[in-house]
């Protein structure tokens, strides 16, 4: 799998490149800002671009803007955006913008190599990846009348994994449940929350996140 990295810290890029190399991901290029990143994506045609949200020159949301542009110019390239802060807005904006292969993770997640590499592979495969802390924030927010109280503990787990972008298959593997059990949990959740079933995993992530955000 071919990966390009964009972050204005050389130290971080080098470290991450070594870490990914150990997991047999090939880092084919590194960029210090969005402009370099776009040039790299054009010349290297990677499977995934891992992009810091905040880069020169503005140090605002250049990574997000670049992700949008990559989607327009190279729709097959997945983009995993990293951020030092958890912002629900970014996660949803990213998933909304890119129907395939988009991820939003806290930067700290690189420390857990296995999970991080798994997220990179999922984005490359076209899945949506949403940082668990975004989901945790949405699920645990204070609500006066919390509709999530209707859910069983198991259903809550399933809901959180759906919001993180997991497929039913992945959920069943993670929770050691059969595919049919997961399906019935999902049906029950949508029924209890009065949500229409989404036609695919990507739209399911959006539907669940939007529901939790509202």
């Amino acid at each position, binding site marked *: 799998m071919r990966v390009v990295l964009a972050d204005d810290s050389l130290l971080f890029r080098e*470290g991450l490149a070594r870490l990914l190399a*150990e997991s047999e991901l090939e880092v084919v290029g590194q960029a210090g800002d969005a402009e370099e990143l776009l040039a790299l994506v054009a010349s290297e045609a990677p499977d995934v671009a891992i992009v810091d949200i905040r880069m020169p020159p503005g140090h605002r949301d250049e990574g997000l803007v670049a992700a949008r542009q990559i989607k327009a110019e190279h729709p097959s390239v997945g983009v995993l955006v990293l951020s030092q802060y958890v912002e629900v807005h970014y996660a949803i904006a990213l998933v909304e913008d890119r129907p395939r292969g988009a991820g939003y993770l806290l930067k700290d997640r690189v420390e857990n190599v296995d999970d991080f590499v798994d997220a990179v592979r999922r984005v490359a495969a076209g899945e949506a990846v949403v940082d668990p802390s975004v989901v945790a924030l949405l699920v645990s927010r204070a609500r006066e009348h919390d509709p999530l109280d209707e859910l069983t503990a198991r259903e809550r787990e399933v809901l959180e994994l759906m919001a993180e972008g997991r497929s039913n298959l992945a959920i069943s593997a993670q929770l050691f449940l059969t595919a049919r059990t997961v399906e019935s949990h999902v049906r029950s959740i949508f029924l209890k929350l009065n949500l229409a079933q989404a036609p695919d995993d990507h739209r399911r992530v959006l539907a669940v996140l939007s529901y939790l955000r509202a």
Partner: protein
Amino acid sequence: MSEPLAQAPAELLASIESLDAPIVLVDAEARPLALNAAALALAPEALEHATDGDLASLAEALGEHARPRPEPIVLSVKTLEDALRAPEQHAESLRQLNQAQAVARIGSWTADRLAMRVRFSEEQYRLYGLAPSSEVDLDSFLMLLHPDDRKPMRAAVVRASRTGEPFRLEHRLADPTGSVEWIESRCEVVMSGARVLRMVGTSYDITERKRYERSLQQSLAEVRASRMRIVSAADEERRRVERDLHDGAQQRLVALSIGLRLARTKLGADAGADAEVAEMLDQLGAELQLALAELRDLARGIHPAALGEQGLAVALESLALRSPVSTSVVECPQHRLPDAVEIGVYYLVAEALTNAIKHAEASRVTVSVSADATRVSVEVCDDGVGGAKIEAGSGLRGLADRVASLDGRLSLYSPPRGGTTVTAELPCV
């Protein structure tokens, strides 16, 4: 009659002698003292009917269109003396009035109903820099005023002359000579029933007061500007600290955690003799994750990155999501506002929210922000215990200071057991 004649002062006798009206001069006990020629010419019985007179009847008798009077007018010596002294007294009181006006720097004027002819006092001439006894009417008076002040003055005078409505106007001089630059004019209307007779007014030199006001306003503006600078410098500093943390400590710690992970990987899953080191590295890694999480919260508290990156709506949503009390942002402009306003509103909401969480025992908070081209209104409303006050050292005091630094207005509605509503209005510039 020959005796009494000698008792009357020659000066008085001379003053009545040549008058056409018949006059009988009497003493304090009403005993006749003298008659003038016109009275002597009357039949003796006419004198029997002599009526008591005073200066008014004398004036009437002497008036231009006075009817020929057969009845003589009886005047006492005292009345006649007073009458003779009147012009002198009038001149004296006029002198005193002029003196008083000069000291007080107050001029006065009178005008006929249409202000065709305006009479100025001496001080009035001085105030307006006119030569004494110059002819003045409304138009020539207006020309003395600063061009911008003529229209309002004309309107006020016209209104006064039509309706009898008094006015009070401050105006500048067109050509300020000497120390006078600003004048306050007041006008009252003398009416007879519904009919306007004339207008009277005063003019007062307020140049000094105006200068004082102007310098007060200037210092006030300076204080305001410096307060604004202090707050925005503090905000800027917070932004800088957040940026430094983000690009510095946070970035280094993330890189460090990668290094630690690489070292741990080198040891391998089966570390053998180095099992103890492997365990240490795992622990260090876990500690580092905690440190990063703490640092993240700290940086967010110092300055929310989302605010600068995405604006108020996103930053407030983020704030509401993290609130331990159910908090919803029911309204917020989606477009960007000036930096200082966004930051001001954000901290305002954050502090009001903190207050609600800490003290109000609220179960629900709503936040709404609305903006037009010139103003932003912020309302944070909770359903808690109420009874909040803006006191020194309280969170609400800090909030009031912040609003003041933005030249805004803060109000608090917090009846006991009735929840708390904090409202602020800020200029959006």
